[in-house]
C-alpha cells in the first residue's frame, strides 16, 4: 500500500465526515436537505457544479483518450466547455426563477403536476441509478488495480460514505464535500500538468513534436480522425454534451442552492471557467504521457498493453514524474472525486423519490416537513444499498457504455421536455409524456443495436445501427414527437397547459408572479 495515498485519503475522509457532522446540525428542514437552504454563494456553487462534472471518468478517461487518440480528445474538452456555456445562456435564469428543489418543479409548473413529476422522476432515476453504479464499479476496479484492495470492499467503502454524507448532511454536506474535492482535483491536475511539462522546459511545441515522433499513429495524433470518422458520431457527441449535461438531475438541482438568479448565473459562469481550464489541461497531460510513459514497461501487463487500461494514464504519469508520493496523492484525489460525484447523484435520486414521487404524487402535498425529511433519508439509505448491491453484482459492467448511455438518456428524455416547457408555449402534458417516452425507447433500442452491445456483447457479426452514439436520432425523435403530439392535442388539459404559459413566462423572466 502507498503511504501518501492512505494519508491523503484518510485526511479527506476525516474532513468530509467533520463537514457532514457540521452540516447535519444545520439541516433542519426539507429546504436545507435538498438545497442547503439556498445559502450557497456563487463561487462555492461554481466549484461544486464544476466538481459534479469533473468526475474520475472525465479526468482519467480524457487523459486516456488523448493518450490513445490524440487531438480528437479535444472534442470532449470543447464539448464540456461549450455544453456548460449553453446551459448558462439557456437555463440559468429561468430555471432558478421557477424551481424550488428539483427540475420536476420546473416542468410541472404549468403542465399536469402529478403526471409530469412521474415523468421527471423516471427521467431522474433512470439516469441516476446507472450513473451511480457505473461510478462505483469504476471505483472498485480502480482501487483493485492501484492498491490491490478487494473489489467488494472498495465498493462498500464508497457506497457507505456517500450514504452517510447524504442521509445526515443533505445538500450542505454534499456541496462542501464536492467543493473540497474540486479544489483538490484542480490543484492535483495543475500539479500533474506542471510535472509533465517540466521535462520539456514548458515548450509545448517540443512536447507535441516528440509525442508525434513516438506514438504509433505518428503525425496523425496532432490531426483530427484519431477517434471519430463519421458525422453522426461527431454530431451525437456534441448533442450529448450540450443536452446531456443540461439534462442531468444532480446538476440541475444545484441551480436551486443559491439565493437568486443573479447568483445562479454567476455560479455557472465560474463553472464554465473551471471546466474549460481543467479539461483543456487534461488533454495536454494525455499528450505529455505519450512521451513520458514511452518504453516504461513497468506499466504494461503481460499482453503489452497498459495495465488496468488507458484510464490509468494519469496515475501512472504521476508515478513517473513525481514518484510514489505524487502517485499516492493523485490516486487519493481520484478516489475523493468518485466519492463526491456519487454523493451528488444519490441526493438527486432520493430527492426525486421523496419530494416528487412521495410528497407530490402519492400524498398530493399533504405531508409535514418532518415526514418528508424522514422519507428522504430512508430513500437515501435504500438507494445507497441498492447501488452497492448492483455494483457488486455487475462488476464486469462496461462503464464507458453505461456513462455514454446515461448522457444520451438525459439528452433525449429530460432535456427536450425541459427546454420546450421553458420556451415553447404550445407544449402540452400529453406531448411531454409521449415525447419523453419516445426518446427513452429510441435511446435504448439504438444502443442495443449499436456496435457496443450488438457486436461486442451479443456477438453478432455486424451492428444494425452502425454508429457509436444514439443521441442525434433519439434527441431529434423526442423533439419531433413532443411537438407533433402537442400540436395535435385537443384535450381540455392542453388548453390549461397552453393558457398557463404567460404566467410562467412572467415568473421566469421577472422572478415574481404578476
Amino acid at each position, binding site marked *: 500500500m502507498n503511504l501518501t495515498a492512505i494519508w491523503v485519503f484518510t485526511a479527506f475522509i476525516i474532513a468530509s465526515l467533520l463537514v457532514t457532522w457540521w452540516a447535519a446540525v444545520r439541516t433542519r428542514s426539507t429546504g436545507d436537505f435538498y438545497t442547503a437552504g439556498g445559502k450557497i454563494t456563487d463561487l462555492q456553487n461554481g466549484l461544486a457544479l464544476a466538481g459534479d462534472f469533473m468526475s474520475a471518468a472525465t479526468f482519467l478517461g480524457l487523459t486516456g483518450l488523448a493518450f490513445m487518440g490524440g*487531438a*480528437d480528445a*479535444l*472534442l470532449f*474538452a*470543447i*464539448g464540456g*466547455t*461549450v455544453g*456548460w*456555456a*449553453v446551459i*448558462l*445562456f*439557456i437555463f440559468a*435564469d429561468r430555471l432558478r426563477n421557477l424551481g424550488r428543489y428539483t427540475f420536476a418543479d420546473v416542468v410541472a409548473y404549468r403542465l399536469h403536476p402529478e403526471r409530469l413529476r412521474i415523468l421527471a422522476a423516471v427521467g431522474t432515476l433512470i439516469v441516476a441509478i446507472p450513473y451511480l453504479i457505473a461510478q462505483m464499479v469504476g471505483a472498485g476496479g480502480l482501487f483493485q488495480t492501484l492498491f490491490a484492495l478487494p473489489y467488494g470492499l472498495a465498493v462498500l467503502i464508497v457506497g457507505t460514505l456517500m450514504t452517510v454524507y447524504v442521509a445526515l448532511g443533505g445538500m450542505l454536506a454534499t456541496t462542501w464535500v464536492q467543493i473540497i474535492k474540486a479544489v483538490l482535483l484542480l490543484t492535483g491536475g495543475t500539479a500533474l500538468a506542471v510535472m509533465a511539462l517540466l521535462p520539456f522546459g514548458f515548450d*509545448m*511545441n*517540443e512536447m*507535441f*513534436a516528440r509525442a*508525434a515522433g513516438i506514438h504509433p499513429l505518428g*503525425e*496523425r495524433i*496532432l*490531426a*483530427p*480522425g484519431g477517434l*471519430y*470518422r*463519421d*458525422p453522426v458520431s*461527431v*454530431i451525437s*457527441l*456534441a448533442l450529448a454534451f*450540450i443536452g446531456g449535461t443540461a439534462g442531468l438531475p444532480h446538476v440541475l438541482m444545484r441551480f436551486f442552492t443559491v439565493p437568486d438568479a*443573479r447568483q445562479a*448565473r*454567476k455560479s*455557472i*459562469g465560474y463553472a*464554465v*471557467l473551471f471546466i*474549460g*481550464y481543467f*479539461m*483543456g489541461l487534461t488533454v495536454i497531460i494525455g499528450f505529455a504521457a505519450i512521451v513520458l510513459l514511452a518504453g516504461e514497461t513497468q506499466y504494461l501487463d503481460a499482453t503489452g498493453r497498459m495495465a488496468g487500461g488507458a484510464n490509468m494514464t494519469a496515475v501512472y504519469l504521476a508515478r513517473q514524474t513525481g514518484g510514489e508520493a505524487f502517485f499516492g496523492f493523485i490516486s487519493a484525489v481520484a478516489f475523493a472525486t468518485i466519492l463526491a460525484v456519487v454523493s451528488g447523484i444519490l441526493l438527486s435520486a432520493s430527492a426525486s423519490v421523496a419530494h416528487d414521487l412521495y410528497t407530490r404524487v402519492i400524498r398530493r402535498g399533504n405531508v409535514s416537513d418532518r415526514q418528508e425529511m424522514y422519507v428522504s433519508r430512508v430513500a437515501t439509505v435504500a438507494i445507497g444499498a441498492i447501488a452497492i448491491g448492483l455494483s457488486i453484482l455487475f462488476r464486469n459492467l462496461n462503464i464507458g457504455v453505461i456513462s455514454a448511455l446515461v448522457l444520451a438518456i438525459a439528452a433525449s428524455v429530460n432535456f427536450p421536455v425541459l427546454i420546450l416547457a421553458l420556451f415553447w408555449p404550445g407544449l402540452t402534458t400529453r406531448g411531454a409524456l409521449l415525447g419523453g417516452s419516445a426518446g427513452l425507447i429510441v435511446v435504448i433500442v439504438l444502443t442495443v443495436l449499436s456496435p457496443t452491445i450488438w457486436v461486442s456483447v451479443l456477438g453478432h457479426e455486424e451492428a444494425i445501427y452502425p454508429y457509436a452514439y444514439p443521441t442525434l436520432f433519439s434527441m431529434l425523435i423526442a423533439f419531433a414527437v413532443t411537438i407533433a403530439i402537442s400540436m395535435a392535442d385537443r384535450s381540455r388539459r392542453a388548453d390549461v397547459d397552453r393558457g398557463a404559459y*404567460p*404566467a410562467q*413566462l*412572467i415568473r421566469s*423572466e*421577472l*422572478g*415574481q408572479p*404578476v
Partner: protein
Amino acid sequence: MSRRGELLNDADFRRLLHRRSRLRWGLAGFLTAAYLSYGLAGLYAPALLATPLPGAAITWSLVLGYAIIVLGIACSIGYVWQVNRIIAPLQKKIAGEWR
C-alpha cells in the same frame, strides 16, 4: 385588459424579452456552430486541420480546438457581464413597477 395582459404588452417588458432572447440564442447558436464546424471540419477537411503552424509541430487542429475552449469561457464571462450590467437593471425596474 387584465394586469397580466397589460404587462405582456408593456414596452419595457417586451424590450426585456427581446434583449434576453437575442443574447441567449445568439450566443448559444454561435458556440454550438463553432463546436460543430470544428468537429465536421475534422471529417471533411482533415488536411486543413492537420497543417502545422509555420515552423512548428503544433497543428491548426490543436490551436483551433483550444481557441474554441477559450471562446466558450470568454462568451460566458461576456454573458454574465452583459446581463448583470444591462438586462438585470431593466428587469429590476419592471419588477418594481409591477409588484
